[in-house]
């Protein structure tokens, strides 16, 4: 079994993000970068699948970005990916083009499962996984907080459903079954990603990162989303402190909040 795990390099969300003076780009040069937290959940789950139900699983991390992304791919190898693919582009493409590239890689590698983060904490789009699933025509399960491998059922109407997954939805936890190959997008509660230990980091240095130029995939980027401006958001509220519950209730009633 092969599992493809897309990895995005994102600015560390614990750092304040600034917009440049032209209001078109983010000032990111001093901001440390990390693996998108949801992608770390996806990778961790892939490793747990290999440690548990599918010992012969091969895990391939894939990054689509500039050369700096090799760092996050190295970290992915240290966390347990077997090998990595780096598709070189100058900046992260929009979700549609990410999905096209992932489809092309999927056609090359024929994975059984694409396991990815449900959203990236920089653009917060929450689109790429659904796009890839649609493009490939594969079953999808988004916002997944649990994955279970189940024995194949001989009953023809439900034959071939190999995975049972729990999805976090607005109305509660939904459970569905999926056939493979499939696309799964991870939510934070899927697991707690591990930190790579030193021996794993050293071992990762010897694992291969294959670099693939876009031209080799026969893809020309055609952005669907064009950014024309950015704006920082700040709080306009001024907190009025109250000293007691009585004063609080007075204020709330006075201002018709209750």
């Amino acid at each position, binding site marked *: 079994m092969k599992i493809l795990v897309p990895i995005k390099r994102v*600015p560390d*969300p614990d750092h*304040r*993000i600034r917009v440049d003076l032209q209001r078109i780009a983010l000032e990111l040069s001093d901001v440390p970068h990390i693996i998108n937290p949801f992608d770390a959940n996806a990778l961790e789950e892939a490793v747990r699948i290999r440690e548990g139900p599918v010992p012969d699983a091969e895990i391939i991390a894939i990054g689509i970005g500039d050369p700096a992304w090799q760092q996050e791919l190295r970290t992915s190898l240290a966390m347990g990916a077997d090998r990595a693919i780096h598709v070189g582009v100058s900046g992260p493409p929009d*979700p*549609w083009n990410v999905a096209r590239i992932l489809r092309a890689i999927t056609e090359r590698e024929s994975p059984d499962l694409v396991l990815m983060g449900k959203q990236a*904490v920089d653009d*917060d*789009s*929450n*689109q790429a996984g*659904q796009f*890839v*699933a*649609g*493009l490939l*025509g594969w*079953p*999808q399960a*988004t*916002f997944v*907080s649990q994955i279970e491998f189940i024995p194949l059922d001989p009953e023809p109407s*439900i034959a071939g459903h190999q995975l049972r997954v729990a*999805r*976090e*939805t*607005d*109305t*509660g*936890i939904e459970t*569905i*079954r*999926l056939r493979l190959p*499939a696309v799964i997008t991870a939510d934070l*509660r899927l697991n707690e990603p591990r930190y790579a230990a030193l021996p794993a980091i050293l071992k990762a240095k010897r694992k291969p990162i294959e670099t693939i130029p876009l031209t080799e995939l026969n893809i020309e980027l055609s952005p*669907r*989303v*064009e*950014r*024309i*401006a*950015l*704006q*920082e*958001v700040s709080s306009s*509220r*001024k*907190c009025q*402190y*109250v*000293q*007691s*519950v*009585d004063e*609080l*209730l007075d204020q*709330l009633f006075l*201002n018709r*909040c*209750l």
Partner: protein
Amino acid sequence: MRILAVIEHDGSSPKPGSLAAVGFAQAVAERNGGHVASLVIGHTVAGIAEILTSFGIVYFADSPALANPLADRYAQVIVDAVSRYHADMLVAASSTYAKDIVGRAAGLLGGAMVSDVVAHDWRDGQLLFVRPMHAGMVTETVILHGDPKIVTIRPTAYPQPIAMETQGELFPIAVQDPLPVGMMWEHLESKLGTRPDVTDARIVVAGGRAIADRHDFERLVGGLADCLDGAIASTRALVDAGIAPNSLQVGQTGKIIAPELYIALGISGAVQHLAGMKNSKKVLAINKDPNAPIFDFADYGLVGDVYDVVPELIGKLHEP
């Protein structure tokens, strides 16, 4: 321009937040002389379709095979409806339903999609969309290239739709045979309870890590909410700890709400949480740490222990 709005429902009526997509569609159509239609998908949804006719034409797909929202089937129906209506734009209100299903449909329709739109504008006849990113610390303005354009809007940012003078026509959509079978429904474990829905409530009381266990969550957060006819909510910390169900999580990866009053009990004010509540009309924070960032995003602040303050508050609200 022909705009098709995908409407989410609870089996008997459209979800109020979902109707904001029609509100958005009407605003766009009014400006550029466009037309608006709704789409509802499910089983025994004729009644819901009927309700929606007050906003114009309604397409509906009704089949036992569509009894539960499975993305592969539903996305196929959406693509069929887009082609039937010759829609140039597909809209839905942002929710886990829309992200899952409309997202997949967008993948089948060419990927010109923008998520979580909070405002729009026009420039040279072209639509500009404003949306938050980086957990709401930054907003970006974007244009979309390609058709159809697929848009999800934040229901908190757009009004409910205006009813038309005459009812729209109903058009059934035949369900393709065979539908995809790679996904199979099992069940939904819903912990919605009897309190108002967090996305529609006028007052929301939210608990953070200060709340030690389920019992205290019910007593303090639930107790205060009940005094105010409010809804309950929580931070990710309490959902991770198993104290609150995931459907109550507010924030970057949870629900986005904007009630008249948001009461934060023992919540620090992490950006990921603020992302879900900072557009509330008024915010009250109660926290024992005077330096908690939540106070920078609050209108009223009380520095104190929620275990002392909240029981006192509940007691005084019960007094005649």
